[in-house]
């Protein structure tokens, strides 16, 4: 009882404090996970996300004259903590949520929609949220898992000269909702292209994958794809190296695509491929500004050592998309202090072409983005990146290519229709 009263008093006090800080600024919450089993992936993303906002504040004086207030909240990749973070920050006028976990995203889909706050699940979360008619407040541009699966298969097609009949592919996946995402798409594509598909589930956390890799070694599939996360990535790549699987035939999704995943395997990981939806490395003009205004000014979120890593770039890209959407919203509504509903409109009208990207200091960093009322999934484009162990760097080896729309679109329509029926949502007219 005493504890409860104490909790009550302190929480009330600290909430009052929190509310005092955020007044007229544009509030962007960052649901980061710098602790727990997935921290190695969460830290660079959160740093990139924060640093870009800091850059906009320091260099441009905010968005359209409005300073950005970044509220970081630690989720530890845990759904309940994520809910706590959402509830504690939404009252401060949070403009858009980047939940950064499958579990939290699924939580927020109904909640945020009811609260009228947009959610940007960039390359994760519920794939069929790409259908803006059903998911009015959820955005997953520029690509989703089904796009990723299709683009990986396209890349394999290119490697094999356009014919996959009689070939065998294997998918090593994290045994969770996230890992199971690409299975439907890969099965549909198997019907179309005539390859055989082997599914290999790895249970959380995935430190022991000997069975799976022995099976791969026995069956010798022509290509192995991976939907992994956390420690599973490092172990899978290490095991692939151990069984001397040809690394350039091993392709991961964009969450199995960071430096963290390949470095522990050392030289052997050379040639490992992964799909990505944005550029890699720090060879972009914007890094000069980030170094000048953020890192050298001592305002960086991290220690500055992960600038240019894949996940840092992804966090920065996410922040850039959020800032551009806020700018669009300001133009549409003619006010600088936008609210979440206006932010949603801005996200829905977001258009970024190569000229704009170059202006922002990120030439050729990602595909053109053109979000519409019906399409919240963006272009659905991705490129393949490859690891070079000698120089410890990734490089894009293909252009950004689109996915197989004739396979993906019906799947999205089907799944979103099921969601709409289950939740009594009448699709909007677009």
């Amino acid at each position: 009882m005493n504890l409860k009263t104490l909790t009550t008093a302190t929480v009330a006090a600290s909430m009052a404090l929190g509310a005092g800080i955020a007044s007229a600024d544009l509030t962007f919450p960052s649901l980061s996970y710098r602790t727990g089993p997935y921290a190695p992936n969460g830290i660079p993303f959160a740093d990139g996300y924060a640093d870009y906002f800091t850059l906009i504040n320091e260099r441009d004086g905010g968005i359209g004259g409005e300073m950005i207030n970044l509220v970081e909240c630690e989720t530890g990749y845990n759904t309940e903590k994520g809910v706590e973070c959402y509830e504690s920050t939404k009252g401060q006028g949070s403009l858009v949520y980047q939940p950064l976990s499958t579990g939290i995203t699924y939580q927020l889909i109904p909640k945020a929609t009811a609260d009228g706050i947009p959610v940007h699940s960039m390359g994760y979360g519920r794939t069929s949220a790409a259908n803006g008619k059903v998911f009015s407040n959820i955005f997953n541009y520029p690509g989703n898992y089904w796009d990723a699966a299709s683009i990986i298969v396209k890349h394999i097609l290119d490697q094999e000269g356009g014919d996959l009949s009689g070939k065998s592919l294997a998918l090593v996946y994290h045994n969770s909702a996230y890992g199971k995402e690409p299975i439907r798409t890969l099965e549909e594509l198997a019907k179309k292209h005539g390859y055989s598909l082997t599914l290999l589930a790895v249970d959380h956390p995935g430190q022991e994958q000997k069975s799976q890799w022995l099976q791969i070694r026995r069956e010798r599939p022509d290509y192995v794809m991976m939907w992994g996360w956390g420690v599973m990535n490092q172990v899978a790549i290490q095991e692939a190296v151990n069984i001397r699987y040809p690394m350039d035939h091993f392709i991961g999704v964009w969450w199995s695509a960071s430096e963290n995943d390949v470095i522990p395997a050392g030289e052997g990981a050379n040639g490992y491929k992964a799909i990505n939806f944005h550029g890699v490395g720090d060879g972009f003009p914007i890094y000069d500004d980030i170094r000048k205004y953020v890192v050298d000014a001592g305002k960086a979120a991290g220690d500055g050592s992960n600038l240019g890593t894949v996940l840092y770039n992804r966090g920065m890209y996410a922040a850039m998309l959020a800032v551009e959407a806020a700018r669009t919203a300001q133009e549409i509504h003619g006010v600088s202090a936008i609210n979440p509903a206006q932010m949603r409109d801005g996200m829905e009208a977001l258009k970024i072409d190569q000229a704009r990207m170059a202006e922002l200091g990120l030439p050729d960093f990602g595909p053109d983005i053109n979000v519409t009322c019906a399409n919240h999934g963006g272009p659905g484009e991705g490129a393949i990146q490859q690891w070079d162990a000698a120089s410890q760097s990734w490089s894009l080896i293909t252009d950004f290519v689109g996915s197989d729309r004739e396979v993906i679109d019906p799947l999205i329509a089907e799944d979103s229709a099921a969601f709409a029926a289950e939740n009594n949502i009448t699709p909007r007219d677009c």
Partner: protein
Amino acid sequence: MSPVVLNTIEVILNGLMTGVMYSLVALGFVLIFKASGIFNYAQGVLALFAALTLVGFQTGQVPFAHVINATFGTDYHHWGEGMNTVLAILLTMAVMVLLAWLVERLVLRHLVNQEPIILFMATIGLAFFLEGLGDLMWGANIKVLDVGLPSGGSFWWEDVTRTWAAEGTEYWGMYIDVLDVWAAGIAVVLVVVLTLFSQYTETGRALRAVADDHQAALTVGISLRTIWVVVWSIAGFVALVAGIMWGAKSGVQFSLSLIALKALPVLILGGFTSIPGAIVGGLIIGVGEKLFEFAIGPMIGGATENWFAYVLALFFLMFRPQGLFGERIIERV
């Protein structure tokens, strides 16, 4: 031999190797349980903490760099080039001994004669504490651990086994990871050393006396406290070995503490109080789960290893409720 037979042998062989890796973790639990009746939940975190400390020394990280920098606005990360692996291992051991002493001094000493579940809970508190402390000291990012052990499939074994296949069949030879072989070797050495230590040294005998009967040991003048510090230090050392072996595969990161979960069925199967039990239990679990995944797994969707280990342990327990090597439970009213 036909490829099916060879494949089965390969699976069994790799299951044995995996089993040894499980046993390495389980050993630490057994040591502490035997000497003090404590089920040490913190053993997994201990492995993580040891591995983190080792990497920290190796690469010359400044402990608590993040806290120091955040508090004083400084920018410290490394204090030099790091140090030689052997020296780093020795220093890590020193840290583990210090930790054992502190645990005894600050926690266990005050909980003498409590029920097992209370002691279990205390180790949970310790686990939370070390988890936070480890991350505060060394940071939560992933670290590469390289102590110079070889890894990768063995070519020699592949070539040898390739000739075993029947004429005309396609067979690539058997796979075995060199690192696993090393781990098995180290485990054997570890068990031999531990046995010798407990049989032929004074401390070792005192240790066994305490394990047999606390009160009797006290009456003949053995200091329980010293013994506990020794046992926790040894468990810390075993944790370090397990941390190195598992960390070499995945890099050192938070998930390393989860390996404790893989040791639970091993412990229960082998009995909490028996070192050979931990080894045999590990081997049975390793082979059992690999064979099941190989033979039945594909039919029911795979990823069966986690629960099958427990079902297997449960099956054995139905016949021997005290574990394979556990002390017989005698019940009296």
